[in-house]
């Protein structure tokens, strides 16, 4: 949750939602209806938006604020507080690799390097084929599988650098 200055320099709203994506806002509106009955459900609302768009576009934040009757500033505050929400489009497969103590000792730095090499991007970015977003994150509570990672919410571990090609092929072939 450290403040990332790149995010501050490119505030959301600068990149409007592409025209082709706009019909999904209606779907989002429908999915928000049951949440109106549940006070405090802004996190669930944001998950609904991210599921539809792969990220939380500014238009979705405005819609959530309107539907749930909370200030847009609060919605923006929540999006930027929780690390699982993204303000930028993400690939269908988000890889979250644990960098904390146990996984670090078990070889996480090498695993992260192997993933970066195989995907051709630095962590924090999406691979050129658009299939994978690579993130390095805080402890995932998978220390019995050290070094561990999540593919979306599926647990994998221990994953050694040599396992990376098979892991990525498996995901590409839908075995996730």
């Amino acid at each position, binding site marked *: 949750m450290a403040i990332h200055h790149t995010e501050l320099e490119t505030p959301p709203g600068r990149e409007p939602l592409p025209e082709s994506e706009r019909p999904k806002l209606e779907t989002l509106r429908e999915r928000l209806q049951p949440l109106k009955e549940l006070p405090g459900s802004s996190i669930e609302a944001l998950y609904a938006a991210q599921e539809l768009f792969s990220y939380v576009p500014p238009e979705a934040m405005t819609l959530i604020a309107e539907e749930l009757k909370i200030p847009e500033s609060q919605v923006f505050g929540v999006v930027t507080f929780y690390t699982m929400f993204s303000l930028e489009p993400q690939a269908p497969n988000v890889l979250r690799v644990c960098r904390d103590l146990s996984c670090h*000792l078990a070889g996480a730095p090498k695993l992260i390097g192997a993933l970066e090499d195989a995907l051709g991007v630095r962590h924090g970015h999406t691979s050129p084929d658009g299939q994978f977003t690579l993130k390095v994150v805080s402890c995932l509570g998978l220390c019995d599988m050290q070094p561990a990672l999540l593919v979306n919410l599926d647990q994998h571990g221990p994953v050694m650098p040599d396992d990376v090609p098979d892991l990525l092929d498996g995901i590409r072939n839908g075995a996730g």
Partner: protein
Amino acid sequence: MELVVTRNFGRPESWTLASYREAGGYEALERVLKEMTPEEVTDLIKASDLTGRGGAFFPTGLKWEFVRKDPKTPRYVVVNADESEPGTYVNRLSLELDPHMTIEGMIIAAYASNAERGYFYIRGEYGLSHERVKAAMREAYEAGYLGQGICGRDDFNLEVEFRRGAGAYIVGEETALFNSLEGKRGNPRFKPPFPTNFGVWGLPTAINNVETLAAAPAIVMNGAEWFKDLGIGDAAGTKMYCLSGNVVNPVCVELPLGVSAREVIMEHGGGVPEGRTLKGFKPGGASSAPLTPAELDAALEPKSMADLGTIMGTGGVVVFDDTTCMVDVAYRDALFFEDESCGFCIPCREGTPNLVQICERILHGQGTMDDLDLLEELGASMMASFCGLGHFAHQPVRGAVSRFRDEFEAYIHGRR
């Protein structure tokens, strides 16, 4: 030894209601509702010396009693399953393998604290736990353990809502979790007032860790003395200890509270990999200061850990062998807390990056002996932080300096 909270882990489909019932599940709830008053339940839990397994070790029965005695309604019970302490995965296993035990404990807690609403809050990354707990809650509603008129008692209702987080260590702090439940940023709130009087939505709230709640049904069935006697010495009950780091078997074991670190690491973890020697260990997650092999016989329980200047924490034991650099370990911890500081108060927001910078300086051979004193000073000023994160963030770094000073000095004097 008799197992309490992990006893069903090996059963086939242990996460289903059918399996849980076969193992005697929900009998404790039925006994409570048939035979006991809420006062009797809190008296029983108080007598058992059950304390909060999330790391604070606050007496559980007392907490429930405080909630019950607050006249404001509706009262709430909240399951805190925002387990995010590095090196800790005990709650995840309970949620995946035996969600009903925690749900039964939650219902007993609600009865004892006269609460009628609840939240089951799980961190966002625990996908399998979400599925298992949601399915278990559906089963519990269908079986009449949740909802209106529980087990035929017209006067006892409990409506529970499932919630998930979205990636934030600090939300494990109970008041931050309330803010998260209310759809806000997970900044902590000022205490007092405490959650038992001013919890979620400003109402009296019994918020408990998964492992704490899971212990309640067994205490009802077997009695307070039975539970108390499971611990070693003055420590009561059992604790799930989980191993990770440079250890042969990174496993989770339920053992008497107060077991020695030697037994956990050597017997259950199989020690360090062959050809290496043990350099040190952390008793309870990133927040705990590391200890040395000379302290292997210390009891892993809150009091003896406090006497050694560290904390019992979550039971997440992280093991270090001779290939591990303790300055790097301190640096890792500092990076974690820098990233997870919520940025709300200045001592923590500014202090955590300072810890990182000092560690980096030393690792890069640019540190001085003054930096080691500076760490002490910085730690003292971080005690002015708003919540526990800032109070603990510097402890692992300072602890590493005090126990492994020669490694820091080796960098400073250019011997590395």
